[in-house]
């Protein structure tokens, strides 16, 4: 197993190197040059642009710049943002906790909704509850998440005025936990309900598959209560694929945050990326892309390892 993990880690590093080269090539391939966004600015003379190009070393060939960037990365230096002139790491440090709060709470709510409802749906297969739940989850999976966010704002902020529709805190007020929670409700609902739909469907089919196994019949035959059969014997095995699914989905939470943070003006990584893309702020773009790519590669590895750990029948060599 240790050998397997080492080999996978080694492959992951190579994969990330390839990805970094792709990202770098993409960003550098802007025909008008990286500063084309600035050339629209009437206050910028060609001399200013040339000075900027020289300052950021943009006159070097792409390969040289990529090499420099790699060396920097190896030293743990992500560079300085073009636009804010602050170190990229400081920018990320300011935003990361906000995104982690939003995605963490959303994931928690998702699982708290999806697991019990999925079990109930499977145990009471073909009941009225199951039929309604199955239809709703199908609808939830077809719902454009950003539209759902707009609807939430229209209903609960504009029409009813119950909840704030943007930001993390009420302006001009000292921090309070209640205020933060009120600001979290709508963005979390937007992310969690749509994600819960997918997980619930998955939980239901995993549970259905397990319920028909022989060992469940054995558990019933030896006189276990139905509650114990479901919660102890069936659930433990049905959760195995779900756990790996959650691991695989972690990076996509960041993708979802791209919409949530824009709609709800939540100052997190998604907005940081969006703004960086708008301004072709390439040190910041590279850093954020690499973080998300690393998350994807590592969560794949994590999912495979969890799978082997939780299901003793699976071994890797």
């Amino acid at each position, binding site marked *: 197993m240790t050998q397997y993990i080492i080999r996978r880690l080694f492959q992951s590093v190579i*994969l990330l190197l390839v990805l970094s080269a*792709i990202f770098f090539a993409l960003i550098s*391939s802007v025909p008008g040059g990286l500063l084309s966004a600035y050339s629209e600015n009437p206050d910028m003379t060609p001399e200013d642009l040339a000075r900027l190009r020289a300052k950021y070393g943009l006159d070097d060939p792409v390969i040289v710049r990529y090499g420099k960037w790699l060396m920097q990365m190896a030293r743990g230096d992500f560079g300085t943002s073009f636009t804010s002139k602050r170190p990229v790491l400081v920018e990320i440090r300011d935003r990361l906790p906000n995104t982690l709060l939003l995605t963490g709470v959303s994931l928690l709510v998702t699982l708290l909704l999806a697991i019990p409802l999925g079990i109930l749906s499977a145990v009471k297969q073909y009941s009225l509850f199951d039929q309604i739940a199955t239809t709703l989850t199908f609808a939830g999976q077809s719902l454009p998440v950003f539209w759902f966010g707009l609807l939430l704002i229209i209903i609960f902020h504009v029409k009813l005025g119950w909840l704030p529709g943007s930001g993390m805190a009420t302006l001009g007020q000292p921090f309070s936990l209640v205020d933060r929670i009120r600001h979290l409700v709508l963005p979390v609902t937007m992310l969690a309900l749509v994600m819960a739909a997918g997980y619930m469907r998955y939980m239901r089919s995993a549970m259905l598959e397990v319920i028909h196994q022989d060992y469940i019949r054995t558990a019933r035959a030896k006189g276990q209560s139905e509650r114990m059969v479901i919660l102890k014997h069936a659930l433990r095995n049905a959760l195995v694929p779900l756990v790996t699914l959650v691991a695989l989905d972690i990076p996509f939470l960041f993708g979802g945050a791209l919409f949530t943070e824009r709609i709800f003006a939540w100052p997190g990584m998604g907005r940081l990326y969006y703004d960086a893309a708008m301004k072709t702020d390439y040190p910041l773009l590279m850093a954020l892309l690499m973080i998300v790519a690393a998350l994807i590669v590592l969560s794949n590895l994590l999912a495979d390892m969890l799978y082997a750990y939780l299901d003793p029948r699976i071994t890797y060599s």
Partner: protein
Amino acid sequence: MLDVKTTEDQEIMRQLSARENEALAPQQSLAVFFWRRFRKHRMAMVGLVVMAIILLLIVAAPITARYDPNKQNLRNRFAPPSWEHWMGTDQLGRDFWARVIYGGRVSLAVGLLTMLVSTLIGSTVGLLAGFYGGMVDAILMRITDVFLSLPTLFVLLLVTTLLRASRSPVFQPGSFWPIAFIIGALSWMNVARLVRASTLELRERDFVAASRALGVSDFRLLFQHILPNVASPVIVAATLRFAGAIITESGLSFLGMGVQPPTPTWGNLLSNAQTDMINAPWIAIFPGLMIFITVISVNYIGDGLRDALDPRHVMERA
């Protein structure tokens, strides 16, 4: 995308045994046979009817839209839905129903083109990798792994922003095909894996050896003999991809990075909605509703196709 290996393998095994059963049925009645099975899926039939209505409205847009989608009337801005303006008017007094109908043309075209691009790339990669194996397989699958590790939404946003910043001629207002190609180029991996797995098993079958013995070229063998045998899962995957592409395009356009205004699409109609929804909530409601109805219909059709094309698949919603 739920990509847990065991279920995928089971799905492929099911598809494979399904194909053996199909071979026993008489050829000419195959379409009738599938249609009978498809018809049993009630929600898929509803989806089919809804999609037919939407397509009719959109194809006949010059008649059904009733107004010119670009005609402004500044004295009638933000008019709520009424008999004259079924979906109200927008910030420039344009009829919103007309804009939604014309927007549907672009949204569906992007979805269709994306589906074609991703299915074409995916099938080709899968066929080549599965058929030739060895180095070809290893290289193609490593490339697939790289693409699977790309944060799709982030890369999409990056590529479209860069294209826009460069004022590339392919990215002018009104042109939608670059978006479709970019989304398609980033979403072929599942089809590739599906087709590869099926091809791996098919190439060992007798009919492939027989075709080889007859001197059939590899190209013909791949596209005329093997491809039809992997069609069922590809058709299902392509249908779901169509739905996914509509959501992706509208998401991208919502962020302001998809198809550029004044060309309306369901996504970019929504991107103005954020500022206007306090005065005119209908602007935020209707385009999204159209996306939702279309996507759920297509997903149900995909579900029905899966049931119809795979005899061993349990019919849950009979």
